[in-house]
């Protein structure tokens, strides 16, 4: 089908930021994995200066099935008016964590019950992170929101890589939020001030029993508005979710 050597495989060394498309390109070019400024977009100027398509491996995975079985076959899957199949990486307080191929649009409650054997024995559903470290944190009472692209934005979250983390009553959202902020402190490339200094300042503030929500909000605004890439822009999401949905964990009384 293709000539030998047409596909070259490159391995990364595991830095989270090298999953960002332009940082990945920088890394493949042998440089520090630091995201580029856009414009120009990588579709115009990408790897070695050439127009580049950057795809998630999951997308490529489905190409064969869709070309063999047809678009209608793929679109026949889906729930709550969403279409297609997704792989969800579910972890946390469930009986059977793991990678689940499930209909797009499935809710987390359905995902837990139908694909993960229910909540872990003795645990009550408390909240969940719908999309990895940057996707935000939602409370149990929002457990019926369809999980797909563009369905979570109204709630201040997004599906991201569909890495779902399920929390129970033994967990606190603020701990999860601090955990991901410390993750970002560790994984930030360090190029730009809002992310480099903002993540660290946020992590420091998030250790207080009572959060200074004004200060954190201010930092969050700047990180969203002025970071070079999505890591810094999305890092405040968990903080904003805690403020909105788990406020009692971080306030007085």
């Amino acid at each position: 089908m293709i000539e030998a050597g047409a596909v070259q495989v490159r391995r990364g060394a595991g830095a989270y930021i090298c999953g960002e498309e332009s940082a990945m390109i920088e890394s493949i070019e042998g440089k520090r994995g630091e995201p580029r400024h856009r414009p120009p977009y990588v579709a115009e100027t990408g790897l070695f200066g050439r127009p580049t398509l950057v795809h998630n491996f999951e997308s490529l995975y489905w190409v064969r099935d869709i070309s063999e079985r047809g678009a209608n076959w793929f679109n026949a899957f889906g729930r709550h008016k969403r279409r297609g199949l997704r792989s969800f990486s579910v972890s946390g307080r469930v009986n059977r964590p793991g990678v689940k191929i499930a209909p797009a649009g499935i809710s987390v409650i359905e995902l837990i019950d139908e694909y993960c054997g229910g909540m872990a024995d003795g645990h009550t559903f408390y909240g969940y992170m719908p999309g990895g470290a940057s996707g935000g944190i939602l409370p149990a009472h929002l457990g019926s929101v369809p999980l797909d692209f563009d369905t979570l934005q109204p709630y201040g979250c997004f599906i991201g890589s569909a890495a779902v983390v399920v929390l129970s009553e033994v967990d606190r959202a603020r701990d999860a939020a601090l955990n991901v902020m410390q993750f970002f402190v560790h994984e930030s490339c360090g190029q730009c001030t809002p992310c480099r200094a903002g993540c660290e300042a946020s992590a420091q503030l998030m250790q207080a029993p009572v959060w200074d929500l004004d200060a954190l909000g201010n930092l969050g605004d700047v990180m969203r508005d002025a970071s070079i890439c999505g890591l810094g822009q999305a890092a405040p999401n968990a903080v904003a979710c805690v403020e909105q949905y788990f406020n009692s964990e971080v306030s007085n009384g």
Partner: protein
Amino acid sequence: MGEVYPDKSVHFVLNGQSLEVPQETTILQVARDHGCTIPTLCYRDGCRPDGNCRACVVEIENERVLAPSCRRTVSEDMVVWTDSERVQKSRDTVLSLLAVEGGHAEGPTSAAVTESELSKWLDVFEIRPASPLGRASRTAVDQSHPGFTFDASVCINCDRCVRACQEEQVNGVIGVSGRGAETQIIFGLDDPVADSPCVGCGECVQACPTGALRLPEAVVTDDQKKVDSVCPYCGVGCALTFSVQDDQIIAVEGRDGPANHRRLCVKGRFGFDYIANPNRLTRPLIRRDDVPKDPELLQQAELGQFDWRSVFREATWDEALDMAANGLRHIRDQHGPNALAGFGSAKGSNEEAYLFQKFVRTAFGSNHVDHCTRLCHASSVAALLECIGSGAVSNQVQDILEADVALLIGCNPTVNHPVAATWMKNAADQGTQLIVADPRVTEISRHATDFLQIKPGSDIALVNAMLHVIVDHGLIDELFIEHRVGGFDQFKKHIQQFSPDVMSPICGVPVEQIVAAATRYATAERAMIFWGMGVSQHTHGTDNVRALIALAGITGQFGRPGTGLHPLRGQNNVQGASDAGLIPMMFPNYQRVTDPEARGWFESFWGQSLSATAGLTVVEIMSRVEHPETEAERMRGLYVMGENPAMSDPDLTHARSALARLEHLVVQDIFLTETALLADVVLPASAWPEKVGTVTNTDRMVQLGQAAVQPPGDAQADLWIIQQLAKRFGLNWQYAGTYHGVASVFEEMRTTMGSPFAGISWKRLQREQTVVYPCESEDQPGQGVVFIDRFPTESGRMRLVPTDYRGPDVVVDSEYPMAMITGRVLEHWHTGSMTRRASVLHQINPVPVVSMHPEDASAIGVQPNGSTAVLIRSRQGEVTACVRIDEAVAVGTLFMPFAFYEAAANVLTADKLDPTGKIPEFKHTPVSVQKTTAQPVVSGYT
């Protein structure tokens, strides 16, 4: 992709105001042009914008996130807000985060931090960090380098230093390590600065906006003034600014001059305090009657702690000047003008050089005036004058940025013309292909497409082989040859014998490499040739340059930007000194003394008759002291200004013996140099930063220097001293005006030089500070590229002079099996008289060394990590020095700088000269080397 028309403008809305701005302008440029205040930290004028600090972000309508205005260019109908609420909030928060990272949330801190760019922006926007949020401070302060401090605790990771080091100076030292909040700037492989490959250019210090990279603390007083001037060291002619306090220079900054655009090297930036060294001559000295001149004195170990009182006594100026003049006049009257000579300075001003040669010609009555160009590019200038009628460069250094190919042969620019080398490296980064030919693996060769490691002294074999390839493969420029070149047919026949097959074993370069390099040069649209001492300092140096001239001539590489010939001029004013006639065969502007018309003009202009015979050159003058052909020709008296032949002449044993043999030696200098130690009268003179005067760099830029401080003690301006001596010879010189009439001297010199200086008046230099010659009129800018339509020869054509292969005068043999090459090192200038008395430079590089390849070293039992000494012997003498093992040195050769009196390399060299250029063969001396237990002396100058 749409085309970019530089003249096209776009409609752009700035804070509600509609504008038409040129395409390709950044938002920052437009905003600042229209009075907006936008803070910038990682952005630096003239450098690639990085956009990482985010202080300059602005709001662009319909974009989700804010944009860095330093990077974003305007586009049609773009709407931008520089002061919206979103922007203000981002800016304030970013600045307060940077304030913490930059050390402003902590207690008292250094002046460099509180006076930094960051600090100024915090003031402008009234930012006060509330608490130390953000990156935990690092406490590491690196003071290992004597010139500057690296304080990582106040670094904001703007990466200006990285760009300065990697992209501007291209030294590749500073990098970034770690990630996120652990990101840090490192030198080398995270080494202390002093252990890293840092060359001390200080570009990073100049670039740093926070004070993380800073100069040593100096209390800044209210009376600090800034004086613009030019660097005193090399021929690049970097513009700089002295910071002066209490009549002392305390710091140097790079200034945006045409040769350097703010860049400097370690010498220019950190080597300024030699002028304040306690060894400065401050009183005239007269040799004590009871102390004979003994050259052995210079060989004495403890020279660094030498007590001048054991040889000289202080005198008043009148007594010293009288004795100086009387001694010289007496010799002239008793023995005739041929018994006297003068060595002027390539480090002094044009005005001093002009007066000095006028003095020798009118007071001594001969043309025996010369300077250190004789030891430098004499062969180059001789060949250039012979072949194309002009000895100066045809294209300036920065033309290399326009060149497709550049041949760098026998030069080591990263060491000897560091800022010029940065342009070369920039050009290589942009795609210019460098062909480097040298016996040593030089730093610049790392940027080369072709590196031709030639055997020492085999340049003609290489270049003639390249010429053969070009002729043989039909790569000549026929049109250019037809109209601009003479003698091609004979040349073509002659070159047939120099095929690459025959020449390859002689020069040691494989045939394919010769062919590739020749083809690359000849087929380039624009190709340039740079060369240095490796080409000129040979007994066949003139031939070497004749061959290079032919290379450019038969390929038509002349008269356009990015083409031509550039002999890299060494001293800060060697070009100017030659132009001003400080040479034995020519008056100012290269008019031959033997030409009756020229001589007649000068006789009329100077009001007396002048010698019709060309004078003697430096080495010839020295050999006439002890070995004249007849008594009548014996050289008996010498006046030396700002030269140190007791270190720079070849065969020092004989040169020093000759100096000691002189009946009367007058030395005018700023230090008691090795030459001054043998003088009868020593006149304390002024250093460059104490002068007003002009100097001319390698690019033919005439630049004005201002006095930043006064000479110490009773030291006087050289211009005054020469005029005082002239007075005592009965010359009625009247130079009106301030600073000893310097402007009048310049104007007189200009008159003698004719049309190239017609447009360069003193007043214009005061206004513009730099003007290039040739410059026909005051309203013209001066020509960077010359020989556009013709060469300044009688026929207008280049003359091709065929050359035969001649190797070095004396080749290695079983008794002296290695070839020693002398040269320079980055931190030290020539004989070391200035730089070894500059505290930072001396600290960086204090030890006299000789460099050897590891194979040669181990063959004589020298271990890599010991500090071993070796005894080096040649037919002329012997020297003991410490060994440095260096793989860059070719097997079978040694490299030795001539800056260290304790191991004076020129004790070993011979005084055989190139027949035309009269330059010695510093680049090839057969020597023998053996390990020794004798300890080499390392004294320095206290």
